[in-house]
């Protein structure tokens, strides 16, 4: 008996057609957006590059010292000096800027969405499965459609990064708000708080340590994605790795890799404890 051949579903074709149609009609918007973001990125990169590296190192070390203490500050100083010495300074600045912009956009999108999803079960029923989809889809795939909309380069990279890195901020915002103790919510209600007062004075502040843990994860995911995004011309440390792969230069690849690790450690350690002020241990 013959099994009838079912023709292949035209899923890929459908997606391509849809994307083409979207590109044809809406690319002028996304390209406009692209100009704004790329101007912003270039502005920050040239601003940071204009400063002599040692000034920037001092600034970072002071900030890290304030936030987490002298041990991490000392380690950061040594790490940054090494980057400077390896002539990877400008690549580091580029990567850092991309991480900064992506994280900023992720938080601007993720925080309000997380709040909505925490407060409305209807929103959360839509948002949560979408997040699963966004996170399990291999990150490279986002890079492909980003190009027609935003062009090759840093902006496409940051858009793909935002898609990849926003979910933890949303998820942990939802988690943090839902886990505000019931009696605090009752107290807020009992004293006659409006919904807005309850959110701003009770739910968000109490959830803040959890939300910041989400932001920390977003930063780390941004960094990993920014490196991958070098494939579409994002430059920076990822670009150095990409060059090393193409030229088969393991030494150079490791240098850039170590630089990424150093940057990751500084970002992680210095943002881990934000929002966990003295009152957090209850």
């Amino acid at each position, binding site marked *: 008996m013959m099994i009838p051949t079912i023709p292949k579903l035209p899923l890929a074709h459908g997606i391509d057609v849809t994307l083409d149609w979207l590109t044809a009609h809406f690319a002028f918007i996304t390209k406009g957006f692209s100009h704004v973001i790329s101007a912003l990125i270039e502005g920050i990169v040239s601003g940071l590059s204009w400063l002599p590296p040692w000034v920037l190192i001092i600034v970072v070390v002071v900030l890290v010292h304030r936030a987490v203490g002298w041990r991490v500050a000392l380690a950061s100083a040594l790490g940054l000096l090494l980057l400077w010495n390896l002539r990877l300074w400008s690549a580091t600045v580029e990567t850092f800027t991309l991480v900064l912009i992506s994280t900023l956009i992720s938080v601007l999108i993720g925080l309000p969405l997380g709040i909505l999803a925490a407060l409305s079960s209807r929103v959360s029923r839509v948002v949560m499965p979408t997040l699963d989809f966004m996170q399990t889809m291999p990150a490279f795939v986002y890079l492909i459609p980003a190009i027609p909309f935003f062009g090759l380069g840093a902006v496409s990279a940051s858009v793909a990064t935002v898609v990849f890195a926003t979910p933890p901020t949303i998820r942990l915002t939802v988690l943090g708000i839902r886990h505000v*103790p019931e*009696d*605090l919510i*009752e*107290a807020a*209600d*009992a*004293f*006659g*708080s*409006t919904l807005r*007062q309850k959110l701003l*004075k*009770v739910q968000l*502040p*109490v959830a*803040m340590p959890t939300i910041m843990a989400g932001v920390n994860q977003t930063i780390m995911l941004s960094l990993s994605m920014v490196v991958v995004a070098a494939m579409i011309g994002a430059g920076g440390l990822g670009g150095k790795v990409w060059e090393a792969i193409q030229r088969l230069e393991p030494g150079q690849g490791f240098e850039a890799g170590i630089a990424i690790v150093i940057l990751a450690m500084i970002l992680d350690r210095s943002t881990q404890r934000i929002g966990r*002020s*003295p*009152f*957090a*241990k*209850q």
Partner: protein
Amino acid sequence: MQIIKVKHLTKIFGPHPEQGLRLLDAGKSNGQLREAGHAVGIVDVSFEVEEGELLVIMGLSGSGKSTLLRCVNLLNIPSRGQIIVGDEDVTRCSHEQLLDLRRRRVSMVFQHFALLPHRSVVDNVAYGLEVQGINEDERRDRAIEALHLVGLKDWEEAYPHQLSGGMQQRVGLARALAVKSDILLMDEAFSALDPLIRHDMQQELASLQRQMKKTIIFITHDLDEALEIGDRIVLMREGRVVQIGTSEEILNNPADAYVERFVENVDTSHMLTAQSLMVRAREVAHPQDGPRTVLRKMTEISYTSILVVERDHTLVGSVTLDALDAAVREGRRSITDLIQRDAPTLAPETPLAEILHLMAEWPYRLPVVNERRRLLGVVTRTRVISALAQSRAEPTAADAES
């Protein structure tokens, strides 16, 4: 004046309360409702609260007392019935009226304090004022004033986690007092505190109540606490009111076997007074008696001291055996010089705690007198000890006299 009137209040939890109400009206039990997917909170509860009264709602966990309390400020929305606060039916008020009720008229103290961990003590206390939109200077002043009332001066800038449980609950109380509402709802407010601190808080609440004339609804599962602080007690069981009355009414006339079982376990030591402990003073002396007569009376019944009263039973004082002995040997004719006139006396309502205190200082029997100093009876050591040993002991012949 009755400031809160609760009329036929019923609360059923679950997705379809109307259906639950129908089952309830059809005479189904709480268990049958539970099987049908409805949780019964409270059923047909009615009572009134007088202005300035401290009403205790008491019952075991699951008896519906917290549900009832939360209906007063609509944290729970009743399924049926009315709650009238002042002259307004809160079950019908608009969103604005409800906010106003919660902000200015009814404030609440929680079992586990419910303090905001990210705010300092003063900012926690000012929370209610903040949501009212009162400016920062004024709310700070009022919060500090409330903190002084609860004895937490100089702790304004601390954070809740730096405070002990008792202090945290003082902050919770200050937060409720700061809004100057007339009505205070206290949900097991002292249950999470250890017994000594709980006792202090009960006394402070009583004294604040006297000063500020708040109307307080206080929830507890502890009958001792209810008896200690409540003007009246509402006893609840499985969502229904079993009995409403003063402590005496509930102790003396338990409405049913359920209340009786409760009452049997109560620690009555603070309910015992001189009146309930005293026994008749069998032998007394009179000021006109000679030392020999009195000495004979005392040796007959082996007293070490005897009370001296006038013919109309007005207490004069007491005479000790040693003093009498010496007087007889010296050949004195009268005992008037021997009478100790400053001996301590008890009023009928003097509580046991105070009696114990006096007993530690005064080795003899304590006379109980009325306001005209007429001798009513005496409280003996034996009587006190046996009363403590079996807290609901009936007076028996054995401990009639010592």
